[in-house]
């Protein structure tokens, strides 16, 4: 059956991909070799066992006048087919153990990146470099809802990929902020669960510059299928340039907090940030998905005192899916989102929350 499907589909069109790929690192190649070795061992055993069974089914039938034999036990063969598989297993275990030990050796890393899973996006923090950002899905809703043609990287594209240098041992410190996620990039053969409250280690050393795509692989709620992982490997020089650029941008972003914002500026930025950070639960039209994800349109909080609204966005609501965005987003984004929520979809409260208000709120809490 498998062979048949394989033959039929071996025209190797991209959408008929049927096997693991060797990937982009030494580890991923040894995992691939291990996979293929064990696959072929299974094929050989399968051909022998199924071959014997099919032969028997063709020949040893009553319709061909076969008389049944009466043998029903043999200690010798029982021992034989216990010992032979055992030997095969030991032979399989040796390379598997070697590869596993290699995978577990995350010492002497040259770059440490903290990877944090959130519902439903990834956060990357370059330790010791003062650079951190979220990585959100960018596939438009229209493509998901079949109103627009799907792009080549449908569901596997993000606004800010994780950028790493090639030829460098990069260590990932993987954790989560809410539920368990799992960070997987097939081409790197790295898959590690992101567990809230615990930090897991993993590492990679990529040979060639390129873009490597993966997905979250632990069910993490509604949008589990919509939080891809994209890793962009750059040459060491390009990486250094990128990092410097990010540091400048981060400084500029911090400057924005003290800037004097106008209502229109906040609304424009708020709409964009809302769509990226809030819309998957509260929906683009603010109507939510009650009762798990309440509506913001006409909600008492969004139309009530600004302090209450700031409180729930900054601190979240314990025991629910509402995360504490105070630690995730900049003051500018939080202010813009709150302003947007208070004035969009006919909420029309008319007031404006500025980044300084958020800063003051946070400082008052400390």
């Amino acid at each position, binding site marked *: 059956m498998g062979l048949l499907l394989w033959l039929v589909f071996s025209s190797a069109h991209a959408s008929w991909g049927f096997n693991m790929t060797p990937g982009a690192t030494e580890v991923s190649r040894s995992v691939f070799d291990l996979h293929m070795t064990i696959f072929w061992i299974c094929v050989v055993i399968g051909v022998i066992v199924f071959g014997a069974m099919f032969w028997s089914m063709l020949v040893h039938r009553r319709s061909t006048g076969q008389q049944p*034999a009466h043998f029903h036990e043999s200690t010798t063969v029982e021992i034989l087919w216990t010992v032979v598989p055992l030997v095969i297993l030991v032979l399989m275990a040796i390379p598997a153990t070697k590869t596993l030990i290699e995978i577990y050796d995350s010492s002497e890393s040259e770059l440490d990146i903290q990877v944090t899973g959130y519902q439903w996006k990834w956060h990357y923090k370059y330790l010791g470099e003062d650079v951190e950002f979220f990585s959100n899905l960018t596939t438009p809703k229209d493509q998901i*809802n079949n109103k627009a043609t799907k792009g*080549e990287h449908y569901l596997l594209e993000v606004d800010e990929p994780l950028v790493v240098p090639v030829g460098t041992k990069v260590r990932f410190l993987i954790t989560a902020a809410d*539920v368990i996620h799992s960070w997987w990039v097939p081409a790197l053969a790295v898959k590690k669960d992101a567990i809230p409250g615990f930090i897991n280690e993993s590492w990679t050393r990529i040979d060639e510059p390129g873009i490597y795509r993966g997905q979250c692989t632990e069910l993490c709620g509604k949008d589990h299928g919509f939080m891809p992982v994209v890793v962009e490997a750059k040459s060491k020089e390009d990486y250094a340039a990128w990092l410097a650029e990010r540091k400048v941008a981060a400084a500029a972003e911090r400057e924005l907090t003290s800037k004097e914002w106008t209502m229109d500026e906040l609304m424009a930025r708020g709409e964009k940030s809302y769509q990226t950070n809030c819309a998957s639960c509260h929906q683009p039209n603010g109507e939510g998905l009650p009762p798990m994800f309440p509506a913001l349109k006409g909600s008492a909080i969004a139309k009530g005192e600004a302090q209450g609204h700031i409180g729930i966005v900054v601190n979240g609501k314990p025991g629910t899916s509402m995360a504490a965005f105070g630690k995730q987003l900049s003051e500018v984004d939080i202010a813009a989102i709150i302003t947007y929520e208070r004035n969009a979809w006919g909420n029309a409260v008319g007031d404006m929350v500025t980044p300084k208000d958020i800063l003051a709120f946070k400082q008052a809490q400390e």
Partner: protein
Amino acid sequence: MSAVIDPGHAGHGHAGHDHHHGPAKGLMRWVLTTNHKDIGTMYLWFSFAMFLLGGSMAMVIRAELFQPGLQIVQPEFFNQMTTMHGLIMVFGAVMPAFVGLANWMIPLMVGAPDMALPRMNNFSFWLLPAAFGMLISTLFMEGGGPNFGWTFYAPLSTTYAPESVTFFIFAVHLMGISSIMGAINVVATILNLRAPGMTLMKMPLFVWTWLITAFLLIAVMPVLAGCVTMMLMDIHFGTSFFSAAGGGDPVLFQHVFWFFGHPEVYIMILPAFGAVSAIIPAFARKPLFGYTSMVYATASIAFLSFIVWAHHMFTVGIPLTGELFFMYATMLIAVPTGVKVFNWASTMWRGSMTFETPMLFSVAFVILFTIGGFSGLMLAIAPADFQYHDTYFVVAHFHYVLVPGAIFGIFASAYYWLPKWTGHMYDETLGKLHFWMSFVGMNLAFFPMHFVGLAGMPRRIPDYNMMFANFNMVSSIGAFMFGATQLLFLFIVIKCIRGGKPAAAKPWDGAEGLEWTVPSPAPYHTFTTPPEVK
């Protein structure tokens, strides 16, 4: 121990009531019955109803995955479907079907008049409709039903769960109580009610595998109950078993769950091993090869099932030594499983085979279960598992061991014993049609899942990139075919109950065992006087 029932006394008791004991009339027969055949029948019908319900949910899943993009359901509902499909199939379809077969066949196979604890038997069945009624009702509650996967990992199933999770927990408790009582009943029956002369090593393998399964159930269902109770405490009583913020550990949940979960997968397959070990010799007209080694292999599998649980958790970050231990222990399971497959193949070798429907399902069981075993061996290799874990490769693997494994085992048993249950032969042509449609549909549905999994498609996602599109469409077509075919099975069974060629006491010329010494259909009471086993 097998002489607990004194033949003289039983004979006397029977003579004391000089009238025939038949079933009571009307609906109350089924509510109040303590008869193992009635209860077995109810278990089997219940499990079939759950099979169709869980199957319909699979149809929703496959319809959504027919093409990329969201078409039919939204992600929240999709997650409820995957969760309920898993829960219903595991706890509602496969497990009760085997308990139904045990109820019907174990007393007939060991020469007992009934199960050892008939009133408890009634109770353990009637808990199930209550449990599943409650579980299914969560789908209609505000916030929806369980949406955290059948493995319900915390904290997704605690802090982040819909409110209906409490009903889910209560339902799981009820199912657990039902299973434990069912298992105790099986153990008590096998150890106490065997006919004189039926020593342990003369028992049919179905009885043996069920005895071992029952011990597994008694060992692990309380662990599951503990697991959901800890969830309940975390949700409602402020504990932090599974929350790192309070000093707990989300990974603890997975250790406890899989300590239950791994033996659970053997609970779902061992009775099928037993049934197939009765059917293949019957249609090969040759005794089972290596009976003794079959018993020891089953016991070894059961033992190993307790020390491999963390192979479901290779990616949670357990230390290297732990990873190696669980990898080696898991690989070891291939040895006793291999012994079983070799024994079945040797039983067929130089037999005089015919291929009636039970035999077709049994042979397909051996071959396709072995394919599931191969992918299981691949998954055991920890470094390779990092690439397979939580992808469709795993989905393909466990559907290969559960569909052509557990479910084909149940179909084979049903066709094999239907003549005994109903007194009629089923329609052989339709039976074969059912087999071939199931065989083709099931392979079409699940084989391509190996490919998309290896190509990188994670499981439990409602939408996917176009590179997975073609195989997903093939899978969906196969799944629709397999699903629709099961209505044919319903038709065949009803047709067989209503009429058909009368079945002889022993309709299969190669069959062995006490169940074939009583007339077909089996009378309401059998073996009120224990038979003598030589």
